[in-house]
């Protein structure tokens, strides 16, 4: 992807970088602290980022590699556009009132499916947590997850453990991996089995272009790629 494919939207890159630089602490090796890291992940709207997602399954010959783009055209909308290996655009729009949200899934060659967000609880949690993440809204995240940080400010890991029993029955933990103020990877570990789902974002997603091998992608995710 192009150079604008970072988590920072192109038009606002300059001020955002300036802000990030200004708020950067002088000690990059200081221990990671979720309270300090999360607000700095906040994305001005509109925002977009590339992603590469790996989903493993015992049913598949090899983990499924899906790539495309996440977009936040406005605060209430999250778009997940898959470009390869198939084309699919999922638009999640949260309504003014709870339950008024709408989801539309458009797949190549088929009419778009539209349904109420209230019928798709898994998308509600995606919208809530991913939205909060992109918005740097720590308080919103802490409504659903316990947060703990490891590593250093330069290279950090934040582990989110679901507090809601129903979510915990499906997801053991969600691990965020990042460098400085860039979120590079999200690993979702299911409550049962070892098939984890991995989403690479921003520079990690760009670096993953053309890589199919699951272990190399995992390494990219873990941060053994080139530093920015």
């Amino acid at each position, binding site marked *: 992807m192009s150079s604008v494919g970072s988590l920072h939207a192109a038009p606002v890159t300059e001020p955002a970088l300036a802000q990030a630089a200004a708020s950067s602490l002088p000690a990059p090796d200081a221990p990671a602290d979720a309270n300090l890291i999360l607000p700095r992940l906040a994305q001005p709207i509109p925002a977009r980022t590339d992603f590469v*997602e790996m*989903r493993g*399954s*015992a*049913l*598949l*010959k*090899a983990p*499924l590699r*899906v790539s495309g783009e996440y977009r936040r055209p406005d605060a209430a909308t999250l778009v*997940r556009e*898959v470009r390869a290996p*198939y084309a*699919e655009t*999922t638009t999640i729009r949260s309504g003014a*009132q*709870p*339950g*008024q949200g709408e989801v539309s*899934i458009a*797949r190549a060659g088929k009419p778009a499916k539209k349904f*109420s967000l*209230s*019928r*798709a*609880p*898994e*998308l509600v949690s*995606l919208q809530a947590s991913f939205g909060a993440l992109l918005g740097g809204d720590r308080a919103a995240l802490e409504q659903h997850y316990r947060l703990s940080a490891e590593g250093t400010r330069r290279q950090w890991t934040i582990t989110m453990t679901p507090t809601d029993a*129903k979510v915990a029955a*499906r*997801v053991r933990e969600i691990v965020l991996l990042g460098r400085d103020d860039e979120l590079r990877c999200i690993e*979702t570990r*299911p409550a049962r089995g070892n098939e984890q*789902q991995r989403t690479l974002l921003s520079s990690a997603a760009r670096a993953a272009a053309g890589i199919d091998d699951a272990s190399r992608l995992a390494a990219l995710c873990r941060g053994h790629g080139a530093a920015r």
Partner: protein
Amino acid sequence: MTPARRIGFALLWLALLALAGWAIGSQLKLSGDLRRFMPSAQTPAQKLLIDELGEGPGSRLLLIALEGDDPAALAAQSTALRERLSAQPHFKLVANGAGFGLESVPERLRPYRYLLTPSFDDQPLDAAYLRDQLDTRVQDLGSPAGELIEPLLASDPTLEMLRLAEAWQPAQAPQTLDGVWFDRAGKQALLAVETRAAGFDPTGQQSAIDAIRGAFEQARGASASRITISGPGAFSVEIGGRTQREASLIGSIDSLVFIALLWLAYRSWKAPLIGGLPLATAGLAGLGAVAAIFDGVHGITVAFGFTLIGVVQDYPIHLFSHQRPGLSPWASARSLWPTLGTGVASTCIAYLTFFVSGVDGLQQLAVFTIVGLATAALATRFVLPALIDPAPRDVAASVRLARVWSALARWPRLGVTSVSLIAALALAVILFVPGAFWQNDLAKLTPVPDAALARDAQLRGELGAPDVRYIIAIEGRDAEAALQASEALLPELPLLRQRGAIAGYDLAARYLPSVKTQRERQRRLPDEATLRAALDSAVAATPFRSDAFADFLADVERARHAPPLTPRDLADTPLAVSVDGLLLQRGDHATALVSLSGLHDPAAVAEVVRKHGGQLLDLKQASESLVAEYRGRVLLALGLAGVLLAAAVWIALRSPRRVLRVLAPMALTTLLILAVLRGLGVELNLFHLVSLILAAGLGLDYALFFDHAGDDRAEQLRTLHAVIVCSLTTLLVFALLGLSSIPVLRAIGATVALGVAFNFVLALLIVREPTAMSDADAVDAEAGDAHA
């Protein structure tokens, strides 16, 4: 016996009554089932209403709304409420939108999805279809919902189970927030609860509603949320409670009035105590007799029964008023007995006609009143005299009473001509006043406040709850036949919905196809080798492993050979609730029901349904026709009772002139009451009819006692005193009822109060013999007699 002994005896009697009351009360099974009070059903709609829908789904549905807190808190309360209520025996089904998905079908029934789904009726399960499905599944796996779908795929690559669960969702399900149903505005959490008790079983509904409120209190905790419960059961409880509160308030006022009046009339505090004993005894004896003979006592029997035996309050009053110094209470009772006995015996004989009505409830009522009246009369004759102190004075000596008597004696006496004229006038009013004569709509007897009705309509709309008035019924000789017949409607109902004739529907065949349909689907499923070949070729072109779907092959093979599902196989699954409520099986036949919501065009629906051998039943019309038929039987019984009563009085009095004079006031009173009610635009219902019987009974007694007094002035004075006390107590009791806000109480009160007033006046004007004591009176009397 000394006065102390006498009062001791009275208290002992009271204590025995309390004991008997406790014993009967602990044994008594009060039933609120209206069906016992209905004649047997004739038309299919009546049969459905009486035999089946009495416990049918619509009438047992309670709609619940929680509001007043934020959605998350309300959702948590809704979930807690559902958990608590599901564990209770009062409820067949508690639904709040959660858990109506895959969990509906237990593991053992999962392979049956290929027999339950219509997916492969037109589309064969072949390689091309599988390929398309698998491609879609790859995308599903890569979607945010992937982790939810992944565990299902190995055995169900076409996601048939999900499709079924989606199809089973109520057609008009409300939106789901935080996993539970909410209204469109997202402010009220909604639940639908089906009770085990029938909608018109007030006791069962009461305990169900108490359970809901109790569970809500616990689920609510410190939250400020409120609960609304609506539906037929909630209304019947609400009306029942209001009726009970008003009746008991009026009852308490009446007791005070009775005590005060008797105390005033007889200047003795013992009079009210002793005067109340026959009524209490009569009530308990009647209740005991009904409980002993019948299986359960109907609530209406008790209410009507106590109304009808209210006349026995008069018996001790006659005894009191005829007391005088020098006459022992025993002698007094003996001399009154022929009159009292005639009244009681003829009334009891009249009530015998209820036995031929063929209605369980009316037969109970007959037993109750006959036993009650007889007991009270015998108690007044053979026990009460033992309790009465010898009278210190004679009411006939009262100056004030004498003055009243002289005034009354100047009233004109009515002869045959005037009575006939009044009767003709009354008849003309009854027949020619415009407006409906009868009130057939049971709902008007128990009016639901407009606000509650509006709330019910709102909840019903939000929840897509079925219409309580219309339902489609399709009969068959067994469940399979009924299911097959109702399947013919499956393609028609969506069309009706598109046309806007209905907003939604539900039927058992939506969940459980007939055995015939299941067998056809079994035949259409590919055999194992064919399916394996199709699957292999489809999988080869996808990222799926070649052996990923072994479970799928096994499930289809199992579905091909499994014995088709029948309603019995669904026991203990959530599906059973839906199927049992909509597929009624009764011995030698079965009825498949289609519940409808948002019915806008009954005629269009009826036409479509008729084409397929079913009918659209109008339950309101059915209940009205039943009421009309019931009333027919009551009227027949009343006509017969009138004849028997006249015969009994004839035998007792043996003089045509006396018989006519005794019967004329009550007959004329009946006409006058009807004329007044009709003139005021009142539509008559069963409660008016029953009250007319009471009024007639009172009138008969007044007339008999005036007749008994003959031309003896002192006796006439005593009788006048007794009848004044009797009619005053009765008038006050029923006039208060007549002011009630409850139509049932108002009907009874107005009718009887009018009856007392007319009977009192007419007894004086028609029955009273002129006395030979005063010249003026004598002249009047002669003039009157000339007419008579």
